[in-house]
């Protein structure tokens, strides 16, 4: 589990006068659960890109457990992200032609960190997300099943942080609720910090802290007690 501290973050894109993202300060303790919402273009994706190290902010520090990943090289950020962040994306980004198990293991294999223990863990995770056939080809699965595979893939390397970008947006209500419950449950179980970008009130409602963005700025940072 990792804690996050953002300081003086600004993301300026060429040709735009105002920064796409401007966050003077944000603290997130290890093991916290955070929902980020806001209208389209409000900077949610940019914020996710910055905190996962996919993009380097124009200014500011992105400190995860004392490491400012904004100072790391691109290769080092890739390695850091691979080891510390479990990413779940709206479009799953699974690879057809491979089985569920192969999909779960693919990033780890390409990063040359998959060993026998990790393969065993991949099988356990698939069972845990409710998939009984690890050898099933991905293209023969339903969307709900696909997102389960993506969740298992995100958790494979025991990440300290799970970042889910609109994880339920392309699923029906039943599957969306199931995936939301799965993410929250697994994050609690592993103690991982969970950051979910979402429009889904059901998912937002289950996370203790809610951040609202508009025009690249935090407009609300709530922690309702009834959670």
């Amino acid at each position, binding site marked *: 589990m990792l804690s996050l501290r953002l300081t003086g973050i600004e993301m300026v894109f060429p040709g735009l006068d105002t920064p796409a993202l401007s966050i003077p300060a944000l603290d997130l303790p290890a093991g916290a659960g955070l929902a980020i919402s806001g209208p389209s273009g409000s900077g949610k994706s940019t914020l996710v890109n910055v905190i996962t190290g*996919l993009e380097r902010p124009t200014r500011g520090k992105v400190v995860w457990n004392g490491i400012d990943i904004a100072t790391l090289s691109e290769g080092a950020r890739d*390695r850091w992200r*691979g*080891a510390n962040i479990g990413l779940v994306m709206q479009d799953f*980004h699974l690879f057809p032609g*491979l089985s569920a198990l192969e999909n779960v293991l693919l*990033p780890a294999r*390409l990063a040359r960190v998959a060993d026998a223990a990790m393969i065993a863990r991949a099988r356990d995770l698939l069972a845990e997300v409710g998939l009984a056939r690890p050898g099933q080809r991905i293209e023969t699965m339903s969307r709900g099943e696909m997102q389960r595979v993506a969740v298992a893939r995100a958790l494979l390397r025991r990440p300290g942080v799970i970042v889910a970008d609109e994880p339920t947006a392309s699923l029906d209500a039943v599957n969306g609720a199931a995936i939301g419950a799965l993410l929250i449950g697994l994050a609690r179980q592993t103690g991982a910090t969970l950051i979910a970008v979402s429009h889904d009130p059901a998912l937002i409602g289950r996370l203790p802290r809610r951040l609202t963005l508009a025009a690249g700025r935090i407009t609300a940072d709530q922690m309702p007690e009834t959670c």
Partner: protein
Amino acid sequence: MGRFILADLRRLWAGSGIMVLLIAMAVALGIGITLQERALRLGSARASEKFDLVIGARGSETQLVLSTVFLQPAALPLVPGAVLAGLQDDPRVLWAEPVGFGDFHKGYPVVGTTTRLIAGTTTGLSEGRLFAAEGDAVIGAAVALAPGEEIVPSHGEAALGGHDHEGVRYRVTGRLQPTGTPWDRAILVPIQAVWHVHGLEEAHGTGEADHEEHEEPAGFDADAALREDWTAADLPGIPAILVKPASIADAYKLRQEYRVRENTNAVFPAEVLTGLYALLGDARQVLAAVAGAAQGLVAAALLLVAVVHIGQRRRQIGALRALGVPSPAIFLLVWTELFALVCAGIALGFLGGVLGATLLSRSVGRVQGFDLPIEIAPGDLAGLAILLVIAALVAAAPAWAAYRQSPVASLRA
């Protein structure tokens, strides 16, 4: 990684297949031309190996070689029989034997010659015996007849309006071992039989062989004894004389002597063929240029395919990067996939080229009777190796583009 590449290729099998085929066709074209040209050179050189010096009447040197070495039908002017007699008495000559053409049987040329020429140019019989009487015939290894069969020769190729020599029958007495030359398709008969069939006895005719006037097989007697010791007086005109000189120096002297003589000509078939090879070489250069242009087009098409290939995978690559896969691994992935496709194309093209050239050689060999050996030289393999190195470098360009691609940009794509 292998499984991922295979799955990816399976998913985009049509595009991958076309890419492999394009490469294969370009490579096959280049290899095929090289091999076929070499086969033609090797084959014709081997066909003329036993033909040190050919003496004929004045006329086309090339035709003299094509008719004697490759048995190409043509009306050759005749040299007087005295020339043969003179050569046979010449101490610079190991043997000099006549060759007479003009007749065919089922498309096989019937060649009149002597037992000494057969002994000097072949490795012997595979079955039966040499001819011993005027009506005996020995067949080349590729002639679809069997000892014991009888044949009626026709004057000129039947397909070209030739006519049968009535009353003439040869008995096949033996079959020669294969020589890999056009003579494997020949039916060899005693030269005296050819003379008798055509009524060419006793030194008549030194000009163009005009066969229309003497159709009668005047003196042909199938059972007459074989006679191969002639005197100048009883020798008719001869289309060509094959000469085995005693030494290389003698060969050059004889060639010189019979070149300056009136009405005779002497050629080294190898020399004439060298001239033809030069021509062949020029033709090959033209073909090679065409093949090169085709390969250039394919290379351009491949670059386009590679760009499309990367375009199709932008999101995939972006996702892999987002999931923490290091960019060198992405480079290796893209490079391996492209290079594997190119290698498959080159391998397939090489096999296709060799197979194509072999089939072409075989079909030419069946018709022309001589081997066109397909031989792969070390240079060909070196060429392939160079092609592989270039392919490896070219595949690196899209791989580099993928390596440089920002994971965020590709996820948005």
